[in-house]
């Protein structure tokens, strides 16, 4: 019940395209859903986060869509750039300060 399932495992997108990564969770106690970006050899860096009281949050080219009834959330990267090439992790917690349960990660490659 603590799992967060993430798909796809890898994604190749052309420059300027839209990258979409999906996550699903089971634990209805989760109320905080961040996305992290990780470059090789670096730690995860917080990209954007959402709480279930809203269905969408946008920050620049990054948008989280949240479907509480389906227990799913997704990350959309608009106008994808080669510099966005990284591994993206969704995560969930029952409070922003509590333990994060991570998805399996998506390796994104944006081709020039």
């Amino acid at each position, binding site marked *: 019940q603590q799992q967060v399932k993430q798909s796809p495992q890898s994604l190749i997108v052309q420059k300027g395209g839209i990258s979409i990564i999906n996550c699903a969770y089971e634990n209805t106690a989760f109320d905080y859903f*961040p996305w*992290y970006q990780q470059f090789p*050899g*670096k*730690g*995860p*860096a*917080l990209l954007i*986060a959402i709480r279930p009281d809203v269905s969408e949050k946008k920050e620049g080219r990054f948008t989280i869509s949240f479907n509480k009834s389906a227990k799913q959330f997704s990350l959309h990267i608009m106008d994808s750039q080669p510099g966005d090439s990284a591994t993206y*992790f969704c*995560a969930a917690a029952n409070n*922003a*300060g*509590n*333990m*994060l*349960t*991570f*998805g*399996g*990660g998506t390796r994104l490659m944006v081709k020039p």
Partner: protein
Amino acid sequence: EPEVTQTPSHQVTQMGQEVILRCVPISNHLYFYWYRQILGQKVEFLVSFYNNEISEKSEIFDDQFSVERPDGSNFTLKIRSTKLEDSAMYFCASSGRGEQFFGPGTRLTVL
């Protein structure tokens, strides 16, 4: 911009040896965490620490592991007797009351 720092960046040890991984959290943060990431796999929670005691721990965090905040700035993870399967990246994180900020990690290699 304040950041979490970790030392060493890479630690190589023999199986059965003790290792101590060190972290300096962001200075005004009160919550501290350790996570690990086995190569190519997802990030896994180990332990959280608040007010000088463990607040949550996972199944991974068994008796071989311990955490300490020995002074006002450092936060350490000790593995008493390392096993081959402890080889991983270990990330420290800290938070104020919300988002967790991760350090660059320590790569632990157990031979």
